[in-house]
């Protein structure tokens, strides 16, 4: 099962190497990774998507906590959250296909950020499923290049299920 973990870490040299090393030597696969600064100086946020059952996840969490520079580990599995990824997609496009692609861009609320006579660069944000779906729709036109960030998440302010 896929889990999204959010690690609050002290922003010190080598902290990413510690986490990456821990995951690789204990045999946990990282599906997606995003590292960024936070609203607090000296603290960074590492968002990870990992695969594993409950027991594996419990071990990952505990092992991560053993790293001195890891301050907090949150498992967002089952928690109402906003999740976002950003992708830049360069798709083949000439006069004959441009209109159709622009329609897709509008449907998905993406943005065209670069235009040439042979291709377009499209920027899209959203959850993984949305980006996957958009990419699938573009595939028939020919995707020349795609760059995609790791996932970032934030817990929703109002928890309607109130299961926490």
């Amino acid at each position, binding site marked *: 099962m896929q889990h999204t973990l959010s690690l609050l*870490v*002290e922003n010190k*040299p*080598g902290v990413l*190497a*510690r986490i990456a*090393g*821990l995951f690789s*030597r204990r045999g946990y696969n990282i599906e997606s990774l995003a590292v960024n600064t936070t609203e607090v100086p000296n603290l960074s946020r590492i968002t990870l998507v990992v695969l594993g059952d409950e*027991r594996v996840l*419990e*071990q990952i969490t*505990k*092992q991560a*906590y*053993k*790293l*001195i*520079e*890891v*301050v*907090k580990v949150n498992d967002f599995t089952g928690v109402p959250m906003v999740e976002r990824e950003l992708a830049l997609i360069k798709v083949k496009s000439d006069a004959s296909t441009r209109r159709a692609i622009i329609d897709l861009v509008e449907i998905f609320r993406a943005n065209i950020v670069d235009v040439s006579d042979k291709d377009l660069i499209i920027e899209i944000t959203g959850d993984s499923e949305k980006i996957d779906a958009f990419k699938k729709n573009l595939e028939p036109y020919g995707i020349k290049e795609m760059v995609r960030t790791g996932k970032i998440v934030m817990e929703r302010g109002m928890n309607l299920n109130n299961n926490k």
Partner: protein
Amino acid sequence: MQMTVAEAIIKFLQEEGVDIIFGYPGGSVIGFYDALYDSSLKHVLVRHEQGAAHAADGYARSTGKVGVCVATSGPGATNLVTGIATAYMDSIPLIAITGQVKTSALGKDSFQEVDTQGITMPITKHNYLLKNPNDALKVFKEAFYIATTGRKGPVLIDVPTDVFASKINYSYPTKIDLLGYKPNYDPHPMQLKKVVKLIKEAEKPVILAGGGVIGSEASKELLTFAEKINAPVVITLMGKGAISEDHDLYCGFVGMHGPAYANYTINDSDLVIAIGVRFSDRSTGKVETFAPNAKIVHIDIDPAEIGKNVVPYIPIVADAKRALEKLIEMVEPKQNPMWWEKIKDWKERYPLKYRWSDGEIKPQYVVEKIYEKTKGDAIVVTEVGQNQMWAAQYYKVKRPRQFITSGGLGTMGFGFPAAIGAQMGNRDKIVIDIAGDGSIQMNIQELATASAEKLPIKIFILNNSCLGMVRQWQELFYNKKYACTLFDVAPDFEKLAEAYGAYSRKVTRAEELEETIEWALNINNAPVIVDIKVAKEENVFPMIPAGGSIDKMMID
């Protein structure tokens, strides 16, 4: 007070209570040694950096204090690696200080540069590359705090040469502010209540004590608790010394080479109270069939150990001593006469044993005689392999920190340098290294260190002219194909000892043994090697093959 970082480190070490460090100089630590030269801090010059790490480790294990070792950058640091990993696996508090190339040369493949922080990341509890001289004292204070609290372990500090030379203002740091490091010592009261109920209901309880009991100085509490609930105490190899082996409640060490009655006891129990153990594969054998009818209570200071190998019925994250103190208060006294009848029967039917044979010296007999002649009071350090297992089986220790062995990593060559550390920390005690002819050659150069320090360490080599433990596995599981385990050439240990200024004698007949042991025990001014020719094909039994369950036990 203005001083260099090197001077400040030494001043700090002394204020922190360090009275001895083990090390080896080199280009990147000249500045440190220059400051050391002018100080009163005792330094033991080893002959190989690995020796420094093991000696600091042996010092820590035998005294309960933190061990400190020093090495230069590059090969100096990589030579420490085995020693640091050994300490990490057994949760031993160790500070390793390494020199590093100057900050401006970092990352340029400079002379004697390696990424020490990167290399030691997975084998330290934490490590630092000290780039800012003004952080020096804060970093050292944190390092000692991290090494000696929670689950103890090694911490490494890598110091570039220009940082050693930088001037700073000295003031002993008192404040520690580590956002992400807050070890939990106190047991959860609700969990303890559940344990008390389980103990009350149990008919066949057993206590499994590990290295954590020794690490948290909880032996006294362990005994009181065990007596109060009349439970047998079995130990892991790392728990040896947690309870006196003369005590009636003691029932041996569990695992691959533990006595049959120890393994039967835990296997048949209905409640395992595991304290300061990590359920290593050598202790549990096949996890799925480990103590199959027992509810397992797991008390450990490290939350990550709980559920890692064995899923407990009741997990308790706590310091062993505090958990035991609370349990002693809460639990009702009980007796388990039926259970003890069963255990006594196992003890009688399956004692540790070996076969005497005329014309040969059995290694078990050697350990028995060493035990008798030292009245069970020596600090016993072991190498790794058959020698280690026979020492564990036949040398019955009385107190914590008396048995020193590389449990988790199984480091051959650990014993002798660790014995140096142990003797440095216990000048009035007899320190013995029970060795094999393979292991002892892995750090034999430390004879020079022991001679220079006039340390009367007694090395007893159980010399079977082979790598006995691997040979045993080859005999039992690889059709007696003795690939690369039989030594064709062996050094003359008597001459080797003489070359290093140590005493030595050979023993080839059982009749000579007692007198030679007495001779060795009376030497008090230099190391001594007793090279004992033992039965070559002797095996360590009982044995549960790796990953096997208790029904696979070979008793002899």
